[in-house]
């Protein structure tokens, strides 16, 4: 009974850790602290967003474009993400100058999997025995820019958070935006 209790408590703690990470990340991006956001990513991070099609249910065509193969909305790693941050810092990236106002809501956070590794929980790192967390959530990102331009980006995300240096880092993100025709003129913000 005690072991089950410990396990349940630990799971709750990890759920809270995952939620805290995602909320802190959203705060970072909404606050335009892009360098701090880059520091929350692993060096081999991957963020990709497939394109959605109107496909027949049960038909031959997949509803989303294929990872590593088709054209997507995004498919990038740390190098490109750093380029984006560099572009924002130029001051002449007109899509974000003046900057968009964004509010990122993250909800329905579900801990899907806890991936263990060889190692032990220690006083320094109570999660030292964990390699990564697989987390699923919903996002609602509101963007307002210029005078009357507004976009709602709503969808689902599958995130993998790695344990590194006593903290969490985003290692992989799949973003499923619920639009087949993108109703925003551009995707000049991070997801």
């Amino acid at each position, binding site marked *: 009974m005690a072991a089950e209790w410990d396990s349940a408590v630990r799971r709750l703690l990890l759920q809270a850790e995952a939620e805290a990470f995602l909320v802190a990340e959203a705060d970072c991006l909404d606050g335009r602290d892009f360098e701090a956001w880059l520091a929350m990513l692993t060096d081999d991070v991957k963020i990709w967003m497939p394109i959605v099609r109107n496909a*027949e249910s049960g038909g031959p065509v997949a509803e989303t*474009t294929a990872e*590593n193969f088709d054209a997507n*909305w995004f498919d990038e790693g740390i190098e490109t993400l750093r380029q984006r941050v*560099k*572009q924002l810092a130029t001051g002449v990236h007109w899509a974000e100058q003046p900057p968009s106002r964004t509010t990122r809501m993250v909800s329905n956070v579900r801990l899907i999997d806890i991936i263990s590794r060889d190692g032990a929980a220690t006083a320094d790192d109570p999660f030292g025995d964990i390699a990564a967390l697989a987390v699923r959530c919903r996002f609602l990102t509101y963007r307002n820019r210029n005078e009357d*331009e507004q976009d709602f980006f709503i969808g689902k995300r599958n995130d993998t958070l790695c344990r590194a240096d006593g903290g969490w880092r985003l290692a992989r993100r799949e973003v499923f935006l619920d639009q087949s*025709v*993108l*109703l925003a003129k551009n995707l000049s913000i991070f997801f």
Partner: protein
Amino acid sequence: MSLNRDFDALVDADNGVISRELFVDRDLYELELDRVFARSWLLVGHAGRIPAPDDFFVSRMGNDSVILTQSRQGEIMVFLNSCPHRGMRVCRFDQGNAALFTCPYHGWSFSTNRERVEVPGQLIGVPRSEEGYSGQLDRVRWGLKRCPNVVNYKGSIWANWDPDAPPLEDYLGDMRRYLDVALDGRDGSPGGSQLLGGVQKWRIRCNWKTVAENFAGDLYHEVSHQSANLAEIGLAKGKGRRDALPLRHAIGFPGLGHGGLAFPPTTEPPLNLSPDYGDAEINAYYAEIHGRKVQNLAGKAHVNLVVGTIFPNMSFHANQPRSLAIVHPISPTEVEMWRMYLVDRDTPARVQDMLRRYYLRYSGPGGMTEADDMENWTQVTLASQGAIGRRQPFNYQLGLGKEAPVDGLAGGVASGSYSEGNARIFYRRWKDLMAAPGPFEAEGDARHGG
């Protein structure tokens, strides 16, 4: 539709002055659908989207939804995606495989299979046919409306509603040679390209001509993309957003309306523009491609192009990145942009992956270059709706009077690197078409029946 407008006053191309009404006016927009889109060759898709019999791809022509399909007999066809009975879309999937399209509303069904019908698109199934129509319904007359002209040009598929349309080759003129740069292989092999899966589709609140013009040869807007250059998003590090290129020229085709940022024909060996990609395998691949290109083009006149527009609404990038775009009109002040990406056939997986990632960080709404274009286009459109703003004409005088014929290019003129000569050519063509009744206007205007 009858509309008496002074098109010479709206488009004074000789003096490089064009009215903002072209970009905001509802009546002009409605007339364009009849007089420009209903009689122009429009890109509807790519053979790579319909590789097998019965494959279909839903596209648009102007503001109409159309079905592009390869029939079971291997014929490429385009149909209006609207049931003749009450107008419902008979195909509501972006892509798929079917020879039979059944309207969800009243159940009329249509077949493209010549084994089952005499005329592709013919009505094949009618619920309560005997009871309701005494079995007398004319199944050809009430079949899907088929587009009379469809051409597969090196994989790109073009369609034209006008029964009297000129052949596609005449319509393209020598602009075709520039289109070839995108559609041929990097080594110059004819039609050696293929399409990546996935079509990027997005809405922009601007007029379609603003987009078409931007890609027709506006090197002057380089300054828009300074941030992408500074972020060094190109394939070779420290080289801005693209590999280095010699200064290109605005080359356009008066009378046809097409144009691009391009290089005149030459018989010199092609330049090797491939930089060091920092990867031995990829460098070796491009060296081999260039060797083959030198062989394939030896002694032949060849051209090159960075970006161009084929009148009215198709644009393409031929080198870096390499893509086909269609700007569909939605309203006077809204478009739906489509972008599809090309690579060579048989590209090694690593090279293809490098290109795919580059295309996505450069182009489309998420691209670091294209994202800035949309900011310009939407604000240009907003500023042209003000009571005073819309009365201030646009200036298209850059490079005015510098137009000169290009040796070895039928009908082509160059007007310098920084020039709006191609835009002047584009709007002259627009004016010519707008001043003449459209192909369907004489039929008592089917909008009112008959």
